[in-house]
């Protein structure tokens, strides 16, 4: 009989981090595989086909980002990056290379579990996309290209809709400035963060009650933007 519990590959060279991750994750119904080096991680990813990988960037043999790049050549398995480096450029590199999330050490188990759950759900949704996205009072009907806020239809320009569409497709996940710019305006404009800011400001003024304190379209300072998913939205204020 095969095990139906999701397999998670934990890649970290620190035994005490691996230990608490294993205990914490196993306690919540996951099967945990461990790897202490980049090479072991890549071998385990091929051999065990895990549903998700938790990848520490500070590995002894190779940089974690290299592992991420190598993985992405053949796999779309969700990768959750762990790092003690809380720096925007590092985050941007990880997201641009295809990381699904970036968790700064030290972190709490509850936070990690929530992010793992979200990443796994996105994986399921990616395989069977639903045409309707809902978060709070925001509703995006991808099939009919209709956006509603609190049941009132909102008119968006084609570029604004395209922006929102990309964010919906990656809901809950950080989309970097570069990714948004090259998808909406083409690779020529991928460094024109200024243009993007202006467009986000306009988009927010259509879909947010208070654009200064957005509830749906969140800024990840210096990295990109993220559309909140229903389980990430706090109750109405």
């Amino acid at each position: 009989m095969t095990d139906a519990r999701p397999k998670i590959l934990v890649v970290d060279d620190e035994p005490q981090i691996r230990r608490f991750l294993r205990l914490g994750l196993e306690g919540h119904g996951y099967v945990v595989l461990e790897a202490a080096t980049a090479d072991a991680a890549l071998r385990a990813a091929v051999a065990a086909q895990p549903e998700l990988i938790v990848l520490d960037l500070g590995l002894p043999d190779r940089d974690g980002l290299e592992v991420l790049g190598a993985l992405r050549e053949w796999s779309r398995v969700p990768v959750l990056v762990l790092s003690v480096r809380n720096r925007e450029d590092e985050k941007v590199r990880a997201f641009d290379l295809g990381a699904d999330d970036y968790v700064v050490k030290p972190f709490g188990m509850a936070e990690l579990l929530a992010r793992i759950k979200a990443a796994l759900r996105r994986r399921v949704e990616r395989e069977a996309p639903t045409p309707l996205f809902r978060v709070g009072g925001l509703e995006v009907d991808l099939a009919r290209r209709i956006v509603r806020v609190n049941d009132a239809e909102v008119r968006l320009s084609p570029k604004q809709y395209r922006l929102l569409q990309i964010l919906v497709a990656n809901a809950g996940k950080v989309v970097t400035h570069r990714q948004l710019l090259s998808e909406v305006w083409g690779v020529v404009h991928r460094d024109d963060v200024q243009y993007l800011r202006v467009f986000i400001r306009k988009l927010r003024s259509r879909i947010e009650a208070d654009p200064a304190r957005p509830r749906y379209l969140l800024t990840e300072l210096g990295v990109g933007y993220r559309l909140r998913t229903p389980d990430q939205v706090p109750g109405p204020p």
Partner: protein
Amino acid sequence: MRLLSYVNSAAVVAGVGAGAHLLAQFVLLPHVSVLFIAAVVASAVLWGLGPSLFAAVLSVAAGSYFFYSPIYSFRVANPQDLVDLAVFVVVAALTSRLAARARARALEARRRQATIGGLYAFSERLAGSATAAELNASILEHLAPVIGRPIHLLLPEGDGLVPAASLDGAGPLPGEVLAAAGRVMAGDRAAVEGWRVDPLPTAQRIVGVVAAAQPADADAAAPPDPDYARALLGQAAIALERMRLGREIADARVKAQGEALREALINSVSHDLQTPLAAILGSATALETLGEAGDPRARRELATTIREEAERLGSYIGNVLDLTRIRSGQIAPRLELVELSDIIDAALRRKERGLAAHVVHVDVPADLPMLRLDLFLMEHAVANVLDNAAKYSPAGSEVSVVASVQDGEVALDIADSGPGIRPGDRERVFEAFVRGGAQEGGAAAGSGLGLAICRAFVEANGGAATVLDTGPGRGTTVRIRLPVPARADANGGPAGDD
């Protein structure tokens, strides 16, 4: 020189004689000797005793030969003429003494004036020397014409005496001069052939030594005025001492500041690191010993304590790292055109849990100009102020974040409803390791680093952070002022379609 004086005297007497002889052709001159007195007096005043006595003798001779009968003979018939001679001699002696004294006094006055002028110029120059090198050069430039050159200044360093500066000094000082300088420094006398070695004395001690080479034919040169040289040396000594004291005071101040900071850091580290560590270790070991048998609620509580204390430890370490970055000058802001509302929102989200018990009111106008800021530094600065607001104001009270444009700048006011900060502490709270004084016995724990980091980060962005005077009992308002870039044109973009 001397001979010339005698020739001159003779010339004067001859002139007077000739004049008297010419005059005698037209008028009767019964007391021609009076005219010769003028010659004697003039010689005395102009050339001193010797030439005037010479003039006196010449005058008597000329008088007796040309004017007193029998004329054209040195024979003197009239005893009256002998009296003339005596008078000449006495007048010559007295006048020349007086004249010599007057001349000496005039010379002395001129010399003193020169000395005072020289000293004055010297002291002005010394006072104007800002650096030690400048001072040393000034001293040598003024001493060299008086004492000699090449000239070297030697100052104590550590236990020894080292050459600090020199003028025209090619090559190192001879060892014997160095040794002599050492003896002079110790208060002894020392002589070296061809060198003059002088101490630089203040009333208390010798602060250095000046060594100047003396020319071989020392007598040929004008001998230096010893008083003037001494005065210059004294002045130089005082100036050097003043410079040294100034430096010592500055050093002491820096050291005291460094020590105060180190002490504060040690106190802070021992308190802010040890307390959470003690709680973590204690809770973890309690958890271990409780084991399976423990009350689940107690186990949960211990786990919560471990988490909370670890978070506290983490934020403290983050702050110390930030402070280290500031102190080591590692802050190089990456300025880019950004929206302040993004920064405020990110800071509020990061401090969401700390602010959960407060009512947060945010007012950021939509038309606020874009600012040229470093996202990371500014978000940190704002988050630190929010952290303080949450810590130092009661649960349920309001924390407001209000941005506005004032006098061409953007002002961000973060206000709480806590006990406020005493007026005298409004600046001090921005110093590292200072906690606001109004929270006496307050349970809120802070490292006292938050506002220091906030100010440093804001200043790195070209802004300023202050505590506003809101009046007693009206909480604390921290104002962050940020410059508006010259061209904050937020509009325009590629293929704008609306």
